[in-house]
């Protein structure tokens, strides 16, 4: 039951499948459970940040603070556990609260004072990164039984980071498509004026969107902390660009109002696959890696554009 408006999404998915197939044909050992689990596991934190970003972009905004939030969260948790011997769960909950609070404050600046999201979140990015550095410039390894247990669980059963990511994807799908808030986000991104005249609480939705993104990026920071069992204030540098790229590749329009959470997940997988392909290739110098990523981004955007215009042409007829 693919309706017309799902064609771009289906096309993105098809392109991913083909990309993955092409890589599998080209590289020995690429088509394996290991590579695919790695794909999810290695990109879980990026995926979490990108999901928060999806909502922000759907609402017509942008959040540059996600990468810095990851750095802040990871160093915050590590310091709490290692230096102040706080219970890990308490530290995690506190980190989530701080992340949401910071997101909410940026949301307030955007909703109440009409600051452009780019600016408010840029200030947020400086702030979060700076606070992280103030807490500790040095990275801190975490030696806690709790984290050890998570790791062992991941080894024996399934990586916790992936589980968290997939759970959040499901929740995000539900929020986007089955809650008033989710539809409100689409409406605000589609036309803010209309949404207001239709009686939607535009300010509240905006604040909630940034709170959600703050929460997601704090969660991403926690997953990063689990992923590396350490805290590092410089973690997640320029990650916001990767997150934006994933959202865009997933078919969400930066102008807001159009896009899918599921698309973002595919976008993450595509970015991850490209990266894995480059590693498997193994001979690209630093500069060629950058050029290759830029080139593939370009190729992909054109491909997507092509498919979308095709799909739209089809619906018009």
């Amino acid at each position, binding site marked *: 039951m693919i*309706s017309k*408006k799902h064609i771009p999404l289906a096309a993105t998915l098809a392109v991913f499948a083909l990309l993955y197939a092409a890589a599998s044909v080209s590289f020995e050992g690429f088509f394996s459970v290991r590579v695919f689990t790695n794909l999810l596991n290695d990109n879980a934190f990026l995926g979490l940040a990108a999901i928060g970003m999806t909502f922000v972009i759907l609402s017509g905004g942008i959040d540059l603070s996600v990468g810095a939030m990851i750095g802040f969260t990871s160093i915050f948790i590590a310091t709490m556990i290692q230096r102040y011997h706080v219970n890990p769960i308490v530290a995690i909950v506190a980190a989530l609260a701080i992340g949401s609070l910071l997101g909410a404050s940026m949301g307030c600046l955007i909703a109440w004072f009409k600051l452009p999201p780019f600016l408010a979140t840029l200030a947020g990015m400086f702030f979060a990164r700076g606070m992280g550095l103030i807490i500790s410039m040095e990275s801190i390894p975490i030696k806690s039984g709790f984290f050890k247990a998570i790791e062992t669980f991941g080894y024996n059963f399934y990586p916790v980071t992936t589980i968290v990511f997939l759970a959040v994807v499901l929740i995000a799908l*539900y929020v986007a*498509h*089955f*809650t*008033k808030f989710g*539809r*409100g986000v*689409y*409406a605000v991104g*589609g*036309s803010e*004026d*209309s*949404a*207001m*005249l*239709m*009686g*939607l*609480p535009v300010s509240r939705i905006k604040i909630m969107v940034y709170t959600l993104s703050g929460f997601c990026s704090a969660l991403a920071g926690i997953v990063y902390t689990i992923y590396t069992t350490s805290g590092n204030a410089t973690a997640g540098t320029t990650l916001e660009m990767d997150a934006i790229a994933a959202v865009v590749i997933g078919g969400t329009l930066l102008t807001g*109002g*159009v896009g899918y959470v599921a698309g973002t997940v595919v976008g993450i997988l595509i970015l991850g696959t490209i990266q894995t392909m480059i590693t498997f290739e193994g001979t690209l110098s630093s500069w060629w890696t950058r050029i290759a990523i830029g080139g593939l981004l370009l190729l992909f955007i054109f491909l997507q554009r092509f498919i979308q215009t095709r799909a739209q042409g089809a*619906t018009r007829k």
Partner: protein
Amino acid sequence: MRRGAYRLAEEIKQIERDAGDAPLLEIRGVCKSFPGVKALENVDFTLKRGEIHSLMGENGAGKSTLIKILTGAYRRDTGQITIEGRRIDPHSPLEAQAIGISAVFQEVNLIPDLSIAENIYLGREPMAFGRIDWKRVHRGAEAAMRRLDLDIDVGQSVRSCSIAVQQLTAIARALDVDARVLVLDEPTSSLAAHEVEKLFAVMRKLRGEGFGIVFISHFLDQIYEISDRLTVLRNGKLVGVHAASDLPRLELISLMLGREISEVEETSAGETRKEEIKPFLKARGLSGGVVKKMDFEVRPGEVLGFAGLLGAGRTETAQMLFGIDRAASGTVEMDEEQVRTASPRRAIEKGIGFCPEDRRNAGIIPNLSVRENIVAALQARRGWLRRLSIKKQREISAEYIKMLSIATTDAEKPVAHLSGGNQQKVILARWLALQPRLLILDEPTRGIDVGAKAEIEKRIKELCGGGMSIIFISSELEEVVRDSHRVVVMREGSKIGELAGGDISLSSIIKLIAEKEV
């Protein structure tokens, strides 16, 4: 805040049960000022239960401001609003809705990329098991649209629908929000005649159910057809409240305009001529989109009317001619020479101007000044190097502000601050400044008041006298009849006939349109 409003609504319902024939809505002594403008001065307005009450007035009379205060989009400076004797003070459209006031605005306010169903239920989706019950949303939306006799796929996105369907969607939403007071601000301006009838039927039904409806329209026929009472505003002041049956049309117009009645009396198209003059533009077999094989000719100094129902392909034909849409096939000849208008820029070079139907999105450049809006096309034609000096720009804008009597205190004011009618005149001025050979006017009188309308019509005639040709597209057949020297009648993308001179009449056009449809 919201809970308060809800409680208020409950209390109102209580009072409703007690109250007898008290007015549903009462506005008393409302004032509202904007920087430099007194938009409303001490205005009163009452709406009874089961009444359709038209709010009349020219552009800038204060109708929109009053509506916006009523729906919580603006805050009033002074005065009070009561619903059934209960004072209310809506801070936002949301609160107004909770109190029971719902509005449909002139410019359709929907979310274009969401579906019809989603738009109807946005913000009040029925929930089941903690999730939106999409089945109920769809069923409900279908029912709401059927109430307006529209049987369409409510899952399609609003963007893909015609403006008429968008308008009806907005109305369906307003009706569905459990409103007691329904405000319809120019709801009919993009509707075809049968759609208007449908809407009126719905309005009458609602009136029977005890709703109070505030109706705004610039179609006087419609006003008289549907209204019980009329409130007339002029320049932000109340000038009269009358029963519709007691107020002759001419008297109403004079109330609105504050002029002598004789001045606004309709003038006829005058003598027909130009039949012998050779056409300078010939379109042959123009096709693309909904348009199929359009042939037409334009002669110097004539008004060529395009008549037809909504979706007949009038706008689409004009857009092809102006290079906005690309024609799939067909040719355009100017002065015996084939021309290709691949972009508006090219068309302008060939001496064609186009006043688009969608003023807000395709017409005005909102934050730029009136002056810059007027000279935009002229400057674009001159290119970026040959810039008009500020002095020259001022001269040009002053000239057209005067010529078209554009009501603005200052040519440097952002055009967004002007009323709709004046914005329309600014766009007209933009094209006149170019002195084009052919000017396409797509619904130039939509949503503007009688006075401005009359002025624009008068201007059209003058321009033709000066040798300019005009393609005139309007949903108001009377206007087309009144102003055109020839009329191309279209249906479903094709030309089905052409009328000239004395043959042009309402009945002849309608007959043509209706002919094959039987």
